[in-house]
């Protein structure tokens, strides 16, 4: 709320924005006063514990003044200069120049695929084998896991229009299936990957069945409750899940049994190829595994969209009652959406368990569901490239914060940028949503429609009711 960014948001809705310098000054004073009032207690005073473990207050008026100053300046500059500029640009913009598409735009998918496959190679060339670890693992794999999860949730939310806030439950089912089955029975990753998918899909049906009658916000809240129930069971069912301590020592993925990535093993990747031991091989291998899993998800989703079941999902999203009166079986349509979405989460979950080597209920909190949903919505529900971009921006952006060591030089050695990760994530959700309510790529047209478009498309007014 405090950043100039969000103050800007406030400006977009009052039409008196172009009030000249005097008006801008007034708005800035107003914004600064509100900010000062909001933060006088929560930033101006900090509760700290002294040696006797008593809470004491530390005064931070300088910080408060700085924040208020920034808000004042930001609001003033925005109202006085940026807003008139934007309005002028809006007025002079020619009616959307469609048609001509550049080379890049036409071959976007090919180029993106090419870049994704080359990414680890570039990372190794850029920062050496050890140095590439961070880029491949923290950025590459991390973002791709979210891309896969978001694409899976997209089936439920984006295509079928069923708002699911407990999606992380299926992710947890996948992760725990792999963790438990591989530790108890020694099954390999490649056997358990489909099994985790099937188990998660089964849970998708089990949890989907009771909520068939619900819609909209109610559906969201019940799925949230289910997600929390599964997490609480994971915490409390200590005999099986080892409770909050989690399961560690989960076996690594092998290269289809041909070679593996344990340094001590006879078929260690490095030994087979006569290379020095390094953790990077495993990460690079995992990167390609998750990349291929993502591509499978995308392929299946795009194909399903063209099949009768995909069309039924979209019909369901647009209008459930109309859909039912046309003879579509809404029960099976909803359940397939839940099952397929959950299946992808199951795949992602077992991959996650294999990558971490450790699972605990901590990884499956509601916040994860919220983050995945945010990515789907910010990406423009239904659009696969949009969701991928949103995942890269939101997850990669917050990961980047970890790298901002130089900020320490600016704000002093106590400054830890990681702490601000989720704060900025939350604010970014708000700002992006207010700025572009239909997502980065807002394509929510049904795949099949009559070629006469009406002036007001029904998806604008009707959507979200599913």
């Amino acid at each position, binding site marked *: *709320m405090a950043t100039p960014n*969000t103050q800007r*948001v*406030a400006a977009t*809705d009052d039409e008196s924005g172009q009030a000249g310098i005097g008006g801008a000054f007034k708005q800035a004073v107003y914004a600064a006063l*509100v900010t000062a009032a*909001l*933060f006088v*207690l*929560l*930033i101006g*005073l*900090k*509760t*700290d514990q002294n040696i006797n473990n008593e*809470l*004491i*207050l530390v005064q931070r008026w300088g910080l408060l003044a700085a924040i208020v100053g920034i808000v004042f300046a930001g609001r003033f500059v925005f109202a006085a200069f940026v807003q008139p500029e934007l309005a002028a640009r809006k007025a002079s913009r020619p009616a959307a120049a469609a048609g001509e598409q550049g080379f890049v735009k036409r071959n976007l998918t090919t180029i993106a695929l090419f870049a994704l496959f080359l990414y680890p190679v570039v990372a190794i060339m850029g920062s050496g084998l050890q140095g590439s670890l961070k880029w491949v693992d923290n950025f590459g794999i991390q973002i791709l896991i979210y891309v896969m999860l978001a694409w899976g949730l997209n089936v439920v939310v984006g295509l079928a229009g069923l*708002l699911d806030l407990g999606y992380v439950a299926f992710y947890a089912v996948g992760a725990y299936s792999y963790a438990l089955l591989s530790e108890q029975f020694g099954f390999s990753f490649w056997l358990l990957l489909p099994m985790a998918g099937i188990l998660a899909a089964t849970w998708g049906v089990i949890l989907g069945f*009771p909520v068939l*009658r*619900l819609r*909209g*916000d*109610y559906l*969201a*809240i*019940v799925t*949230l*409750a*289910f997600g*929390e*129930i599964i997490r*609480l069971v994971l915490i*409390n069912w200590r005999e099986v899940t080892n409770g909050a301590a989690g399961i560690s020592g989960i076996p690594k993925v092998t290269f289809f049994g041909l070679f593996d990535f344990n340094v001590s093993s006879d078929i260690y990747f490095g030994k087979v190829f006569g290379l020095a031991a390094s953790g990077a091989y495993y990460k690079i291998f995992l990167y390609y595994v998750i990349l291929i899993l993502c591509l499978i998800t995308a392929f299946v989703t795009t194909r399903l969209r063209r099949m009768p079941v995909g069309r039924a999902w979209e019909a369901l999203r647009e*209008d459930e*009652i109309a859909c039912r*009166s046309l003879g579509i079986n809404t029960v099976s349509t909803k359940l397939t959406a839940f099952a397929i979405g959950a299946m992808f989460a199951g795949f992602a979950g077992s991959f996650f368990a294999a990558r971490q080597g450790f699972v605990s209920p901590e990884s499956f909190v509601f916040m994860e569901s*919220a983050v995945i*949903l*945010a990515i789907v*919505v910010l990406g423009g*529900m239904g659009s696969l490239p949009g969701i991928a971009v949103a995942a890269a921006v939101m997850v990669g952006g917050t990961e980047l914060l970890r790298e901002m060591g130089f900020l320490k030089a600016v704000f002093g050695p106590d400054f830890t940028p990681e*702490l*601000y990760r*989720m*704060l900025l*994530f*939350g*604010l970014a*959700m*708000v700002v992006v*949503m*207010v700025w572009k*309510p*239909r997502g980065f790529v807002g394509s929510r047209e049904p795949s099949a429609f009559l070629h006469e478009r009406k002036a007001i498309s029904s998806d*604008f007014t009707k*959507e*979200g*009711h599913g």
Partner: protein
Amino acid sequence: MEYFVQQLVNGLTLGSIYGLIAIGYTMVYGIIGMVNFAHGDIFMVGAFVALIVFLLLTSVFVGVHVVFFLLVMMVVAMVMTSLYNWAIERLAYRPLRGSFRLAPLITAIGMSIALSNFVQVAQGPRNKPIPPLVNQIYEFAGITFSLKQVIIVVVTAILLAIFWYIVNKTPLGRAQRACEQDRKMAALLGVDVDRTISITFIMGAALAAVAGTLYLMYYGVVVFSDGFTPGVKAFTAAVLGGIGSIPGAVIGGLLIGFIESMWSAYFSIDYKDVAAFSILAIVLIFMPSGLLGRPEVEKV
């Protein structure tokens, strides 16, 4: 029997707090049809403001009566928290009014994340314990109850009475009910819809702030992540009572409080949250309009 009544007393205390939070959910849902996901965190902000005011007061006044402390904490928390909810509505929800239905839910989730992390960054991630404010304990027919519990129940009852009066007997309440029924029509008849909605948010936040203050007084500790679970439970209460209905929210809150304390007493304390969430699911599935809610009619 005494054990049972004891649990009833505990449940009543807990339920009062949930009920106060639940009113904020139910009013906002009633008037603009959105789940204000950040409401739980608004409650947490209220508790933090109360904490800071408490520390300020103890460092300035010594030996003043505790009632004065509690009153000042409550009033300041109400004002500050209302300001937060007002600002959030203004920045994150109002620009999206008339947008598709998921949009404000997403910004609300974003605000919830932002608020709890803002408090974490600004006030530190540790638990914040305070010395007990009131610690008298009474015994009556084998049942012990503390003055804290009495204060919670009495304050809740007084606030509900005031609140009932505002919603049912004042022009402001009439405007709110009008907006709830038909926003466009209310606007045409001269009700300032934006202002009414803002006031609804402010009222919800004020009640949540009182709940936060009482929570701080009762448990003597608060932490930045305290908003989520009470928030979800209060939402459960709102739904259980029938979302949009204010008496329903209070009844729902009390029911959830009773269920939680009974479950902890007779079954297992580990699964008390599971019980609350299961009830939420069961109520929504079998009785989607809750105890006192109006069933929603949907047309093509």
